[in-house]
């Protein structure tokens, strides 16, 4: 009986998580008439019309390409320069207590609610003439992600025994080679966890993308979907289809990395 209740509770929880998403998918396959008037749960004759209308009339391809470029670019930059910094913080003793100061700066950068930056970042981007470019988004997201990468990677590097690299260096490796040959492979699980978290956060970012871009040349998926929602207010099928397509890349990504997903999300949140 107890076991039955236990399983029942878990099934209810899964339903609670899935039903809203199911409803979006179901609505995306209905005609607008059916959605607004018939009150059906499942589409009576599923149609792809909403999807084809999105692809033929609107700029979905652009949104997707921009999101892909911006996310990959920002996360790649953040991973490279962030791991280098984390390595330096974990392995070297710096002068003037620099270690503590740097850790503090990065902690502030991590805890700072980014919304306070909207006014100055917009003003500066306008002055530099980089509004509505993918570049400005890449740079800003890389900066947001880098403090995250340093925090997460710092503890991973600290766990790797120092002896291993020193042995390699005694055998004639330079510091850089030792880092590449010995440390990075050992830190790979950490890098994977960090990358997963960074990709999800970056792909999903909306506020700065909304603020800094204005055309499909640079708008990312979340902004694209929000723009469409404003424009197609009552075309429920198309709106639902836009939601499905917009969520799909990150859901597919999550499925691909599902073995590491739980760890990545937990560490990313707590660090």
């Amino acid at each position: 009986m107890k076991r039955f209740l236990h399983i029942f509770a878990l099934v209810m929880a899964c339903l609670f998580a899935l039903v809203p998403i199911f409803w979006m998918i179901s609505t995306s396959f209905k005609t607008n008439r059916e959605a607004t008037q018939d009150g059906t749960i499942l589409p009576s004759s599923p149609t792809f019309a909403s999807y084809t209308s999105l692809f033929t009339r609107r700029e979905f391809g652009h949104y997707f390409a921009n999101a892909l470029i911006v996310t990959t670019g920002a996360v790649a930059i953040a991973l490279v320069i962030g791991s280098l910094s984390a390595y330096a913080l974990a392995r070297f003793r710096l002068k003037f207590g620099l270690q503590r100061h740097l850790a503090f700066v990065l902690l502030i950068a991590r805890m700072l609610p980014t919304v306070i930056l909207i006014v100055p970042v917009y003003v500066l981007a306008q002055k530099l003439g980089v509004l509505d470019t993918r570049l400005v988004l890449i740079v800003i997201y890389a900066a947001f992600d880098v403090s995250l990468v340093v925090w997460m990677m710092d503890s991973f590097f600290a766990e790797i025994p120092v002896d291993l690299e020193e042995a390699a260096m005694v055998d004639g490796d330079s510091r850089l080679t030792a880092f590449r040959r010995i440390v990075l492979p050992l830190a790979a699980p950490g890098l994977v966890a960090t990358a997963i978290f960074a990709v999800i956060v970056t792909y999903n970012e909306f506020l700065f993308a909304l603020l800094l871009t204005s055309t499909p040349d640079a708008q990312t998926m979340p902004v694209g979907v929000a723009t469409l929602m404003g424009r197609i207010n009552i075309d429920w099928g198309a709106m639902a289809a836009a939601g499905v397509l917009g969520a799909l890349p990150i859901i597919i990504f999550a499925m691909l990395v599902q073995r590491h997903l739980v760890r990545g999300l937990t560490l990313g949140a707590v660090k």
Partner: protein
Amino acid sequence: MADVAAERTRPIERVRGAGLEKVLPYLFLAPALLLVLAVIAYPMIRGFQISTQFYRFGRPLRSVGLDNYREALDDKVFRAAVWTTIRYVFFAVLFETLLGLVLAMLCVRELPFIRAVRLVLIIPMIVTPVIVGLVFRLLYASDVGLLTIISHNLGGGDVGLLSKEGSAFWAIVLLDVWEWTPLMFLILLAGLQSMPQEPFEAAKVDGASGWRTFLDHTLPLLKPVLAVAIVLRTLDAFTTFDQIYVLTQGGPGTSTQLVAYYGYDSFFRFQRYGFAAAMLIMCALVLLAFSAMAVRMLRRMDR
């Protein structure tokens, strides 16, 4: 063993590239530091500057000292937004903590399919927040919404949660609970999984009830993790923006206007640069003070 010890005491200068070794850490640190300074620290300073100026048509006209701050503090809409945000955060985090704790307790034991269940339960936090807003628009809409359709099937009328001030507030709280309970669940699950087993085995031998064991052992051991989770969620929920932007735009009236949304609106729609900057800086300072306090509290708990 002796060999290893000898290796370890060997002076580092003997290693190839020892001159480089001195500057290397600084070279490693420089790019990340420059990026953070350029994109976060410098704009922050500019933000303070902007908050002391009066802007018109996107240009600074004159310096006004702290007038923008005074104006924000006197602004009824801002005060209402702060109050709404506090209530929103309180209720959302409260429900998320309770639900997340229950779910974590249910998922910590090994059952068939438990891994799949865990994955399903975290889907909501992965979905893009803007699209979560869209999902809930489709649920809440008074014509096509699932809630309305269920109500019709039960013989009721239209359900339009977003059209009344009272229910709109709870509608966005429910959205937050749906989206972020998974995060609470994940953090607490990790906490439960890393707990020592001995107290629980001892309690079992003593014949303590499940409820007693939970109160006497689980909860005290979980307290630090619980605190971290609550602090993180509180900070995040305080700056909720995306979902409000696509779902309610702060309405009806100002019933779902949270501070981040009001800040954005004042800046982008009403072009009140200095005013918006001052408002957001004040909120950020309060949040930073809160985090500093929380960090200190957590350190004390660790000891």
